């Protein structure tokens, strides 16, 4: 076979395959790509499969690549929607090629978990104690300040080892956002972000890495998403909230944190609900957002996305609790619905049938 023949064959093959893949399916299946937050991934996969069962012509793919990655890909328009447990910054919004809206779809919580032998009751922590532990100022479990939070608990005199996330993550961002709010010293020395410079401790990769290190190493304390602590049957700390109550994280207290802050939530729904007021509000809670362009570029995809999100924040909420997420409070469902109604194609609302 001549070289030329071979070349032209390869060329032809390449042409054929690109034309196949780039061809828009006019009336066939609707394919939607989403990516972002790993916090929401288990729920999103459930939603995608349930929604796919009801709408056989729709295929939604969601990739859990991290909130930052989701934001990046939305900005580059490589996906149709992103999910993030962080709100986009003003600078990020400004540099995007179109107006992006945030739609809260579910609530998540970050919890303190620890490995301390001989302690059966859940330990209690006040905000400054947590800050001092993660600043490295509290180094033993029988420190006076931990004792003050836990009267009568026989805390052992052993060194305390901090475990934190080593990979950039929304979980770290929520946790450090909380610490920055409650502790001026934390705010000044460390600040908040997806990969802060931790003053002390061991870094574990991912929720599973932190869970593994806390579970395997005695006398450790770390923070993970609620689901990881519950599923691994690890102890979960009670945290003193703004009202002065020690609150256990569960779907009620996390939803409460959102409900209590609903009046202060701005119009664009970008809100931090850490350190929320309210008697039974769990203080390290956060919305998870779907982020997408207000003006959609494809009518069918836009319409499907609108329908999918409407379903998610209404019917879809019932899948939250079994997966250890917390449903949106009624007031936020209303506001999120109003936000979804703003999504358009060619300036026409996509909400109407």
């Amino acid at each position, binding site marked *: 076979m001549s*070289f030329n023949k071979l070349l032209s064959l390869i060329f032809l093959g390449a042409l054929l395959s690109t034309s196949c893949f780039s061809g828009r399916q006019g009336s066939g299946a609707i394919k939607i790509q989403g990516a972002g937050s790993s916090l929401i991934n288990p729920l999103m996969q459930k939603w995608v499969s349930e929604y796919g069962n009801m709408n056989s012509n729709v295929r939604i793919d969601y990739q859990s*690549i*991290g*909130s*930052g*990655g989701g*934001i*990046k890909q939305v900005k580059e328009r490589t996906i149709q929607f992103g999910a993030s447990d962080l709100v986009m*910054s003003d600078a*990020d919004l400004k540099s995007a090629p179109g107006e992006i809206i945030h739609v809260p779809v579910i609530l998540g919580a970050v919890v303190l978990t620890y490995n301390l032998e001989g302690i059966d009751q859940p330990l209690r922590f006040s905000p400054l104690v947590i800050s001092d532990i993660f600043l490295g100022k509290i180094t033993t479990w029988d420190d006076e300040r931990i004792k003050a939070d836990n009267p009568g608990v026989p805390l052992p005199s052993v*060194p305390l*080892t901090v475990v934190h996330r*080593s*990979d*950039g*993550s*929304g979980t770290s961002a929520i946790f450090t956002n909380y610490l920055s709010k409650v502790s001026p010293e934390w705010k000044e020395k*460390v*600040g*908040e*972000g*997806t*990969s*802060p*410079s*931790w003053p002390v*401790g*061991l*870094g*574990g*990769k991912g929720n599973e*890495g932190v869970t*593994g*290190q806390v579970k*395997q*190493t005695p006398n*450790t304390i770390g923070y993970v998403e609620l689901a990881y602590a519950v599923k691994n049957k690890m102890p979960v700390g009670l945290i003193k909230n703004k009202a002065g109550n020690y609150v256990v994280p569960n779907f009620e207290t996390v939803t409460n944190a959102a409900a209590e802050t609903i009046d202060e939530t701005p119009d664009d729904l970008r809100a931090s609900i850490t350190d929320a007021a309210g008697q039974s509000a769990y203080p390290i809670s956060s919305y998870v957002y779907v982020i997408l362009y207000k003006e959609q570029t494809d009518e069918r995809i836009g319409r499907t996305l609108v329908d999918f999100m409407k379903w998610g924040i209404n019917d879809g909420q019932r899948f939250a609790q079994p997966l250890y997420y917390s449903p949106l409070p009624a007031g936020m469902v209303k506001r999120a619905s109003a936000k979804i109604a703003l999504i358009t194609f060619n300036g026409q609302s996509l909400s109407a049938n």
Partner: protein
Amino acid sequence: MSQPDNKTEEARSKGVLTADTIYRALLLGCASLIIVIVLAMLVVIGQGSLLSIREFGFHFLIGSVWDPVKGEFGALPFIYGTVVSSVIAVLIATPLSIGVAVFLVEQAPRSLARPIGFLVELLAAIPSVVYGLWAIFVLAPLLRVYVQPPLQAALGWTPFFKGTATGIGMFTGGLILAIMITPIITAVVRDILEAVPVTQREAALALGATKWETTKIVLANASSGIAGAVILGLGRAIGETMAVTMIIGNRPQISVSLFEPGYTIASVIANEFTEATGDLYLSALVEMGLILFVVTFVVTAVAKLLILSVGRKTRRTA
């Protein structure tokens, strides 16, 4: 026998010629592809890190603060961690691998060498994330309870084994790397030893050499190949990401104590790249990649030089 036709002869030689040229061109293409890939990578990485190089300059290499929140980036703790964990790995893995390979080739009966050789190859195929998880759940607790306390009791007076023994840190990171590169070094060394002609062994034995003396001669003849195998392992150790990340503690600090947590270049890239927002942050991480390139190059070169000089000495004495 009749003379072959002149014309067909000519045609054939012509055909052979073109075939030869194509063959040569193909091979050259394959070889230059490697160079092109490396250059393309260097260009892209260089471009990506320009912003960070301009901002921090040389300070990036000697800075030891890594604080994405405040926008301060220094690479020194990561360079330290990468080099130290890899050196620990090679120091442990090299004698172990040579031992296993010598056993497989020189000592073990066929019935034993086959299955063990197969297992070694199997170990090389295990994904590194599996090694990492195994390290967290099995190796680290084991080290914390049974290895680190006696080590600390015996050698605690040296600066190398100070601090709380948590089972996680530079020591465990180096050890898991050693476990991961052992199969590679072993497999290569075994193949090299097998390539040493049997006649050499027979000659040595005929001269009255013991089994050990024979092995020594075989090893000396295979030394340059063994060195290559070790460098191969070293290269893998430097670039290894997942398993180390899960076990090294991910703390950007320079501590002489091996029980303290450390951090490697590959780990910080894997950890932070997906969530890196901001151009300078991203650029700093890309520059880390550039440094990993340089570190790999320097360490491999130093290792090669070291082995070369040792090789010369042994050849002179032999």
